[in-house]
Structures are given as structure tokens and as C-alpha cells.
């Protein structure tokens, strides 16, 4: 069975807690707080002010640039203020506060459950609609989707790779979405194929979701060019580069984007959002997230409007379990441990995971025993033990030579180390430094070029 060729690990998938739980809608909050930064790129700019009435789906902040995304109101009501709120780590972030009144939608949004299959829009129009709907990658990266659909000059897309892998342990929202809304995802795929002007799509799904594989394969029969590829179980198969390797056997070169090998990758949740935006005029105002953990009372998959306080979602899942040591936004491999749950739900949060106290504490590291297991595990073919050592010695140049910038933060190295070395902590730190050095060099080069031109 196909999988990516280098490294990888096999964490316990722990999906049984929330797998096959019907997607449940979370009730509307009384006050919604909508962050302006829910994507990678320039922050969105608020276009409403205190006292304005807004409807569901109305633009409340416009994109701050090409690589940016607008924000739509997920609720209807009155804008209370445009101010800063704090994120899950106590840092300030700009947001729009709305007092919710009723649930009135913009009239052009089709709220029926009908599935619309006919699309007469031209490719350009489809991409415009996706851009206007504020759609970003919902797999976790939150990169604005329209940017991916407009390949830079000289590059051509050949195949759309659909990420239905959900390789993070515990998370089940994409799995459930495929089971419940597979047809819409298929239509989303058709739309993206049309937008890109290509004919072939491959849906990668790991074999721990046999029902999703069967369901999607059945649906794919009616969608020419779409193929389901069952993949062997291995983390981080959902990583963009790994998924492309697993599906079509091409490796994206270091420092390049997937388009370099003719691939465009989108997550199933993103494709569902694309369908809703293009066919039903519904912008991105909600997402499905998994709330789970070994001691959570009602683990499950919840559809949440953005701006809803996480606390409200948690309550629905049965409250914070007594023995919680860590709350993670996302999965256990790449998710971030939160300091508090005062944050509102947004495009970035794909899940909430409550880890028990005894699982939350890291084991004391011992000496590196040079077993090489981290080298074997690294899916990018790096040498984590060496990078960590160089980072501790602040040898940034050598780290750059050893390609630290290729690191995708997957955590396989730390996961696998028998000595519990905090490898990725060191590597991340070094990566920050090396990245800074590279940018500084680029800037200096640009300045030198500008100066030379000014002289002429």
C-alpha cells in the first residue's frame, strides 16, 4: 500500500473516542468575538464600526492583501466594539465583538440542504468567489486557498491532491465530514478541477478509515477523473510534501511549493467550504472541530460558528475533565498547548484535545545514546540529533548547511527519541535564527542592488 518513502512514525491513533460521532451543531453564543487574524498572511482590516448592524455572512473585515482573507460575520446582531482580545496564550489580537441578536442571514445565501451540482461559472469567477468567501486551508495551515489556485507564471498544475488523511491522532472531524458530506466534497473537487483547468484528482485516505475509503470510492464513480487512494498508516502523511509523495510518488524539492511538481493540495474540509461558497454563496463562517480526550464525557465532532467561545463548545462536550493536565488546540503531534480556553473558536482550531495529567508531563531527558532513531524517523531526511546539538551550540551556519529550514515541525524526532531529548524545541529555536539570518541576507542583497542602481 502506498505511503511516503522517508521516515515517519506510528503513534497510537486514539480515534475511537470521537470516531463516527454525528456532527453536532453548537448553539449560537450570546456574544461573538471574531479575530481578524485567522489565516497566514496580512491581517484583515475591519470595515464595520461600533453600533453597525450585521447579518450572517456579511463581510466585516476585508483582506489586507493578496495573501490574506476577508472575515465574514458568523452571527447577526450589533457590533459592540472593535478591540483587542487575548488568544489562548494571553497575547493580544485584534477582533470584532458582536452582540448576537437572532440568526438572520444575507438573503443570497442558500441555506437549504439541497445539493447543487450545476456550475456554469468560468474558472476565474470560481476563484474569485473562493477568495471573496475567505476560504483558507482548514487542515491547520490556514493558508489562503485562492493563492494556491493561481499558480505563479511558468508553473502548471497537473493534479489535485485531496487530503483526507487526518494523520494526527485523536482528530476525527475530516473523517466524519467525508462520511456525512462526501458528495459536497466531491462537488468541491470538481469545482477546483475546473478552476485549475485540470482533469485529475487523487483523494488520499489512510486505511484506518475503511468506511470513508469505501464511501468516497463509491461517490468517485460518478465523478470522472477523481480517484481514491488508500494509504498505509503512517504519520505525518497529512504533511503536504509527504502526501504528494505518497499519492503520486513525486518529491517536492527543498524550499519549493507543491506546484513545482504539478500538484495542488487541499484538505477535504476546505473542499467542502469551497462547495458551500461557490454553489450556495455561503462564506466561511463555521467549521467542524473534534473535541476529544480519554476522560472527556461527550467526545465528538462539533460544527461551530467562528466567534463562539471555546468554553461553550467544551460545555457541550461535558466540561473540562477533572484530571486534565493539558488542553491542546489541534492534535497531539503538532497542536499547541493552550494556557486558557477564553479564546473564541476560529478557522485555525481543528480540535480540542484534553490530555490527562499523567500524559502531560514530559519525561526527564537523558543523554543522547546516538541510536539514530531520530534520523530514521525524520520524514525530511534530516539529522535531528545533530541539528539539536548545533542549536545548543548556537552554530547557525552549520544548521543552515544541514538544511534545518526543511524541517516541517512534525515532531517525529522527539516522539521517537528513547532518551526523550527535547530535539524539536532546539530545532525550532535554531530554525527561527537561521530564518532570520536568511531574511537579513536577502534584505542586504536587495539594498545593495538598489544602491547600485541608484548610482547608475
Amino acid at each position: 500500500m502506498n505511503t511516503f518513502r522517508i521516515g515517519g512514525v506510528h503513534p497510537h491513533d486514539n480515534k475511537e473516542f470521537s470516531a463516527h460521532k454525528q456532527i453536532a451543531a453548537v448553539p449560537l453564543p450570546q456574544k461573538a468575538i471574531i479575530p481578524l487574524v485567522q489565516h497566514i498572511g496580512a491581517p484583515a482590516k475591519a470595515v464595520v464600526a461600533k453600533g453597525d448592524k450585521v447579518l450572517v455572512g456579511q463581510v466585516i473585515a476585508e483582506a489586507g492583501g493578496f495573501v490574506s482573507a476577508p472575515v465574514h460575520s458568523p452571527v447577526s446582531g450589533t457590533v459592540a466594539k472593535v478591540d483587542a482580545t487575548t488568544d489562548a496564550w494571553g497575547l493580544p489580537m485584534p477582533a470584532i465583538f458582536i452582540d448576537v441578536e437572532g440568526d438572520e442571514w444575507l438573503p443570497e445565501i442558500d441555506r437549504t440542504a439541497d445539493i447543487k451540482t450545476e456550475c456554469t461559472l468560468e474558472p476565474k469567477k470560481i476563484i474569485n468567489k473562493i477568495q471573496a468567501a475567505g476560504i483558507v486551508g482548514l487542515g491547520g495551515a490556514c493558508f489562503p486557498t485562492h493563492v494556491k489556485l493561481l499558480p505563479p507564471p511558468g508553473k502548471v498544475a497537473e493534479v489535485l491532491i485531496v487530503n483526507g488523511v487526518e494523520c494526527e491522532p485523536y482528530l476525527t472531524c475530516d473523517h466524519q465530514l467525508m462520511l456525512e458530506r462526501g458528495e459536497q466534497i466531491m462537488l468541491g473537487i470538481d469545482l477546483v478541477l475546473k478552476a485549475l483547468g485540470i482533469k485529475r484528482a487523487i483523494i488520499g485516505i489512510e486505511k484506518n478509515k475503511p468506511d470513508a475509503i469505501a464511501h468516497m470510492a463509491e461517490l468517485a464513480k460518478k465523478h470522472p477523473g477523481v480517484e481514491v487512494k488508500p494509504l498505509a498508516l503512517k504519520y505525518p502523511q497529512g504533511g503536504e510534501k509527504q502526501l504528494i509523495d505518497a499519492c503520486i510518488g513525486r518529491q517536492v524539492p527543498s524550499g519549493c511549493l507543491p506546484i513545482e511538481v504539478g500538484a495542488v493540495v487541499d484538505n477535504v474540509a476546505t473542499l467542502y467550504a469551497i462547495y458551500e461558497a461557490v454553489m450556495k454563496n455561503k462564506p466561511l463562517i463555521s467549521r467542524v472541530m473534534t473535541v476529544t480526550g480519554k476522560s472527556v464525557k461527550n467526545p465528538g465532532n462539533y460544527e461551530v460558528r467562528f466567534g463562539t467561545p471555546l468554553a461553550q463548545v467544551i460545555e457541550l462536550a461535558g466540561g473540562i475533565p477533572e484530571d486534565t493536565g493539558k488542553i491542546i488546540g489541534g492534535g497531539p503531534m503538532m497542536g499547541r498547548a493552550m494556557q486558557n480556553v477564553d479564546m473564541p473558536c476560529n478557522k485555525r482550531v481543528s480540535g480540542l484535545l484534553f490530555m490527562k495529567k499523567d500524559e502531560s508531563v514530559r519525561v526527564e531527558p537523558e543523554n543522547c545514546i546516538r541510536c539514530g532513531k531520530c534520523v530514521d524517523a525524520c520524514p525530511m531526511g534530516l539529522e535531528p540529533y545533530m541539528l539539536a546539538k548545533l542549536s545548543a551550540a548556537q552554530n547557525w551556519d552549520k544548521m543552515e548547511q544541514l538544511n534545518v529550514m526543511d524541517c516541517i515541525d512534525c515532531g517525529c524526532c522527539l516522539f521517537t527519541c528513547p532518551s526523550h531529548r527535547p530535539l524539536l524545541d532546539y530545532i525550532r529555536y535554531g530554525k527561527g535564527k537561521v530564518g532570520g539570518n536568511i531574511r537579513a541576507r536577502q534584505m542586504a542583497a536587495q539594498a545593495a542592488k538598489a544602491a547600485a542602481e541608484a548610482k547608475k
Partner: protein
Amino acid sequence: MKLIVAPAPHAHSGDSVRKNMLNVIIALMPAFIVAMIAFGWGAVITTAVSVCSCVLFEWLICKFLMKERSHVGDLSAVLTGLLLAFNLPCNLPLWIVVLGALVAIGVGKMSFGGLGQNPFNPALVGRVFLLISFPVQMTTWPRPLGFSGSYLDAETAATPLYTLKNAIKAGDSSILDELPTLWDSFSGMIGGSLGEVSAIALLIGFVYLLCTKTITWHIPVSIILTVSLFAVVFAAIAGLPVCTFLGTTLCAGGLMLGAIYMATDYVTSPMTHCGQIVYGIGIGLIVMIIRCWGAYPEGMSFAILIMNAVTPLLNMYIHPKRFGEKKK
């Protein structure tokens, strides 16, 4: 509620140094059982003394010289003791065993800063020290007698490799008739260090190590293949019976023990698979050169120690295959 905030990942494989060491110890048990059958109480006593003194020395050095938390619980000292014992003849005076343990742990391991820091395999440092200091005692191999014989008055046997060496020197293949049968060599009923005699028991352990993913195949297989190839070519050219020569070369003289358990020591072997293969080929070549032309009949210890010294170099120059590496 106080939440723990730490960077990702928040999951761990559950692997630990202790688990890996324990796996190697378990893998060595079949060989230990054969040693008990072949050499009786001598094997048990030598092993017990070696393991206990290694652990004791490690604990003492941690506590009184390095003044840090002792790492005895990670079982690496137990493993060193076991491997050291496996490399000794079972009738070695016990005070020499203790001395070997002191050198292995004190000089071979702790003087470099403990587990993970030593460039050379500690058990081999101990053994080579003894081999050079006590050449007579270290090369007096008792004949396998089982529990019936007391090891003190065991008659000594020439090792199969010694016979091979004589045959090579004399260029006379009739000397090889003195060799034990290949089955004896394979199963362990031959003279030699106590843990090295049974190739089959060591191979069973190898399978266990592979199944538990404690080690990968790269080092043992590259050593064994290199040695086999070398042996076949050499025997053919020297006009010795190829099968006997090959079988004896592989089964005797700690080749299996070295290839599977000593050369694969995490700390002193290369990190990358490619490096491991180069390292394995290096060991295979050196051991055969020593055996065919050198002064010692076996040479596995020296070969491994020499390649241990090359390991940092291999780590520096051989890198794993990167994802998306452009072909040059």
C-alpha cells in the same frame, strides 16, 4: 485549573533507553543458556561477577566521582557486564574479570562522561585490555564439558580459529580435519569465549532484536556478507575447502557475537544506514585481514574498536537521503 504549556509534540512513542537495553539483554539469553550448557557453573559465575562489578563500578563512579544522579537503572551497565563476560573464557580467574569490568566501565565509559559519550564500546575496551595484559589466561579456552565438569581443571581446547590459522600458515588443508564439525560450531559445542560459541543462539537473538526494532539489519548483515565474501575468495585462492573455511569463520571467534551485539552498540556505531553499511564492511574487512595475515586468530574486537574510531568521521560525511533532494 493550572494547565501545562509545552511545545509540540505532546505524544511520545514510549521508547526508552532502558527498554532498548533490556531487549538486547533478552536477546542474549539464548546464548547464555547455551553457555551454561556448554561450560556449566563457570559461565554462570563469570557472568554474575562481571555484571555485578560493572553495575557496582558505575554506581560508585556516579556517586563519588561525578557526583550526579546514577543511571544504573537504564541497564546499560548490566549490558556492558554481560557482553564483557560473553567475551571471556569461563575459567578466567575472577579477580581478572573484576579488573576487566573496572576498565570497561571506568575507562571505557565513565571517563568520557557516561552513557552516550564514549567513543569506544566499553565491553570491548575491557576485553582488549585483558587480552593484552593477560594473554595467557585470556587464550586458554576450556573444552565444553557441561555441568558435569568443574571449570578449574577443565582441559583446554584449541579454538577452531587457531586451527584455521595453522592451516593458513602451513598451507595444508589436512590440518582442518582437526576442526569440530560444522554442526558443533553452529550449535556451540566448541572452545571459545563463553558467549560466542553458539552461532544459532546468537542468531535467534538477532531475530528478536529485529522484531522489536531495537536494531536494524544494516550493520550485522553488512559485516557477515563482507566476511563471507572475503572467506570464500580467500579459501578458493589458498586452496582450502571453501565450505569448512566459511562455516568456521562465521561461527567461531565471536564473529556473530561481535556483528550482532557489539558492533551494533548505539553509542559507537554510525547514525545513518549508509554509514552503518560502510562501517559494517570496514569491520568485515579488518577482521578478515587480521585473521588471515595478522598475529591474532580472531580479531573481531580490534576490528570493531578501529571502526568505532572511524564512526565520528562517518557521521560527519555521510548524511541520510534528504526528502526532495535534487539529483546532481
